[in-house]
C-alpha cells in the first residue's frame, strides 16, 4: 500500500469519523424524551422544563375555542391526568380518546401550556401497527406548530 493511498484512507476516516462524531454528539444535545403522564407528574425536575408528554385525550374534557384557534383538554395515561392548554390551530386528527403528544411546559397554575400538539387518530383498522396502515396520519398532518 502506497503512502498516498494510506494518506487518502486515513484522511477519509478522519473526515467521516469527525462528521459522524459531531452528528452523534449534537444529536444527544437536542434529543427530547417523551414522558407518560405518570412519569411527568412523578418527576419534579420535569416540572419547570420544556418537555413532551404523551397520552390520550380524556373524553369530556375537551373545550374548543369558538373558531378553532385553541383547545383545552386533559391528557391522561388512564391513571393520572394533566390539564393542557393549546392556543393554535387544532389538527384535524385531534379527537377524544385519540393519542396525543404535547410539547411545552407547566405554568404556575398547574396547566401544561403546549406549543406543539401532535395528534394520532386511534387505530381503527388493525389493532397493532396502525401506522403501518396509514403512515402519514400520525405525521405532518397532525403537527400543529
Amino acid at each position, binding site marked *: 500500500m*502506497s503512502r*498516498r*493511498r494510506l494518506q*487518502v484512507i486515513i484522511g*477519509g476516516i478522519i*473526515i*467521516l469519523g469527525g*462528521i*459522524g462524531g459531531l*452528528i*452523534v454528539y*449534537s*444529536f444527544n444535545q*437536542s*434529543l*427530547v*424524551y*417523551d*414522558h407518560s403522564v405518570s412519569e411527568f407528574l412523578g418527576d419534579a425536575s420535569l416540572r419547570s422544563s420544556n418537555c*413532551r408528554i*404523551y397520552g390520550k385525550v380524556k373524553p369530556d374534557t375537551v373545550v*374548543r375555542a*369558538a*373558531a*378553532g*384557534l385553541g383547545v383545552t383538554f386533559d391528557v391522561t395515561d388512564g391513571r393520572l391526568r394533566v390539564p393542557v392548554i393549546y392556543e*393554535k*390551530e*387544532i389538527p*384535524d*386528527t385531534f*379527537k377524544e380518546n385519540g393519542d396525543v403528544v404535547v410539547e411545552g411546559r407547566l405554568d404556575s397554575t398547574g396547566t401544561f401550556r403546549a406549543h406543539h400538539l401532535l395528534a*394520532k*387518530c386511534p387505530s*381503527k*383498522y*388493525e389493532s*397493532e*401497527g*396502525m*401506522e*403501518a*396502515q*396509514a*403512515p*402519514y*396520519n*400520525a*405525521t*405532518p*398532518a397532525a*403537527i*400543529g*406548530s
Partner: protein
Amino acid sequence: MADFGSTCLVAGLIASVWAVLASWLGFQHRSSELVRSGERAAVAVALLLTFSSLALIQAFVTDNFSLLYVAQNSSSSMPVIYKVSALWGGQAGSLLLWVWILAIYAAVVVMQNRSRNRELMPGVTGTLMGIVVFFVAMLQFVSNPFAPTGQPVADGHGLNPLLQNPFMASHPPSLYLGYVGVAVPFAFAMGALFSGRLNNDWITTTRRWSLFAWFFLGIGIMQGGYWAYVELGWGGYWAWDPVENASLMPWLAMTAFIHSVMIQEKKGMLKIWNLLLVIIAFCLSIFGTFITRSGVISSVHSFTKSNLGPFFAAFWVLTMIVALGMLAWRMGRLRSENQIESLLSRETAFLLNNILFIAICFTVFWGTVYPILSEAIQGARTSVGPPWFNQWIVPLGLALIFVTGVGPLIAWRRASGQNLRRNFAGPLLVAAAAAVVLLAAGMRHARALLAFALCAFVLATIALEFYRGARARMRTAHETFLAGLASLILRNKRRYGGYLVHVGMVMIFVGIAGSSAFQQEQVATLRRGESFSIGPYQLAFTDTSSTHDDHKDVLSTTLSVSRRGEAVATLRPEKWYFRAADQPTTEVAIYGMFSWPPNFSDDLYTILVDNDPKGGGYTFKAYLNPLVSWIWIGGFILILGTHVAVLPEFERRRVTRARPAMEARGVAS
C-alpha cells in the same frame, strides 16, 4: 378467484425455492441446464405472482369482503381507482405488490441476459429469487392477503380519506418501483462476488437499472412531498418524518453509487466502495420497506407484537452478513488500478461527493433509527425534531452543491492552475454577482444567500459546459448554435443528461432554500366581508357555501386575493366531513404555479382552520412560501434529464445511420 390467487402464491413459493436451488446447484456442478431451469422458474414466478396480484385486485374491485384484507382496506362506496390503490393501503397487499414487482424485474433480467453475463447469472437469479422466497413466505405464513374474514361483513372499513388522493395512490407504487429496483444492481453485485467475475460487467449491465431505481425513488419522494404539501395543510412538504426518511436514505445511497461507478468505469478505482454502496443501498431499501410496513415507528412495542417485525429484522441482518461476508471474501481481488494523485482532481471531487452523500445518509439514518433503538433498549420514547436535521443537512447540502459545480469541470488526475482559472473564474464571478445583487435587494439571511450564490455557481458551470460544447460543434460541424447544442446533447446523452439532472437539483435546492428561509404565516378569524393580509397579498373573505355528496359534507369558503391592490386569484379553502370517518379533512387552496395565470415566485397557501357556527367567525391560516414551485419544476427537469441520460443506444444507432447524410450536408454548406 381468491382461491386461485392463494394457490398461485403457494406455487410461486415453490417455484422460487426451486429457482434458488437450481441456480446454486447449476453453478456448483457447472450445469447450464440447471441454471436455465432456475431462470425458467424465475419467469414462472413472475407469472404466478402476477396471477396472484390480479386475483387480489379483482377481489377489491368486486368488493369481495370475505377476504379480511379487502374488508379492512376498501368499502363498496369507494371509486374504482381507489379500490385498486387500496391494494397497497395495508401491510399484506403492499408486500404482495413489492414482491410482484421484484418477480417481474427478475423475469426481465433473465430475458435480457439469456446470452449475456452467463457467469454472473446463477448468482443474480439466486439472489433475486432468494429475496422473493422471503417475501412470498411472509405473505404465505405471516401476513396473508387472502386470509378469510371469518364472519360475513356487509361492507368494508374503507380507505383512510387522507389516502384517497391521486398522488397518494401513485406514490407508493413509484417508491416500490424504486426500492425493488435497487435489488437488481445488488443482485448483480452478488453475482460478481459469487462468481469471482469482478470486472466492470456488473456495473455496465445494471447502469440503466440503477438509474431506473434511482429515478423512481426520486419520483416517489417528490410525489410524497407534493402530496404532503397539497393535502396535509401544514404549509410544508418535508418534515423529517421516519417514513419520509426511509425513502430518502436509499435514494441518497443510490445517488452516491451512480456517481462513484463512473470513477470505477473510467479509472478502475473505488471497486470495494461501489460494492459496499450497492449493499448499503439495498439494505436501506429493505429497511425502508420494513419501517413503513411493520409499525415499528409508532412504537417498538407494536413492532415486537407485530408478527412481521422480527422476521424482517432477521432477514435484514442475514442479508447484511452474507453480502458483507462475500465482499470480505473477495476483498483481495478488488485492487484499485489507479490512485488519487492530487487533492485538486475530479477523482477527489467524486470522492468528496460520496463522503457528503454518505454523511447525509448517516445523519438521516441516525435521526430515524436512534429513537427506535432507544425505545427498544431503554424503554424511553425520544424524538429529535426537524431543527436537528436541518442543522446538519443544510451545511452538508451546501457543500454538496459546491461539489456539484466543481466535479464535472475539474480536470482528471491533477488540475492545473490554468484549468481551474479557465473553468471556475467565470462561474465564481457569477456567484459573487448573484450574492451582491441579492444583498443589494435586501436579503440578509446568510444561509439562503450562500445557497443562492452556490446555485448560481453550479448553473454557471453547466451553462459554460453547454456553451463551450455548442461552440465546438459550430466550429467543427458547422452547425448553428442551437443545432450544435442539440447534437451535443444527443451525442453525449449520459453526460448532458447528467447536467440536466444537476440543473433540476439546483432548482430544487433554490426552492428549498427560498421556502424554508422566507416562509411567512398569518392566522385570522374573520366574518364575511373582512380581510387580512400576508406579504404583498390581501385576502378578502367574500363568501361561503356548503354542499353534500354521497360520502361527505363540504364547507367551502371563498377568498378573493389581490396583490398590491390588483385582483389576482380566487381561492376556495374547504373543510370536508366524511361521514364514514369521524374526523374532518382540510382542503388546501393554493395560488401558485398551477393557477391561471401561474405564479412562480411565491405560493400563497390557504387553509380553513375552523368556523364558529354561532358567532359566524371563520378562522383562516395563510402561508407565503417563496419559490416552492421551483421544487416541482426542478423535479420535471430531473425527469427530463434522466430520460436523456438513459436512452443512448437507441439514439446512437440512429445517429450513426444519419451521420453520412449529415456529413454530406456539412460539406455542401
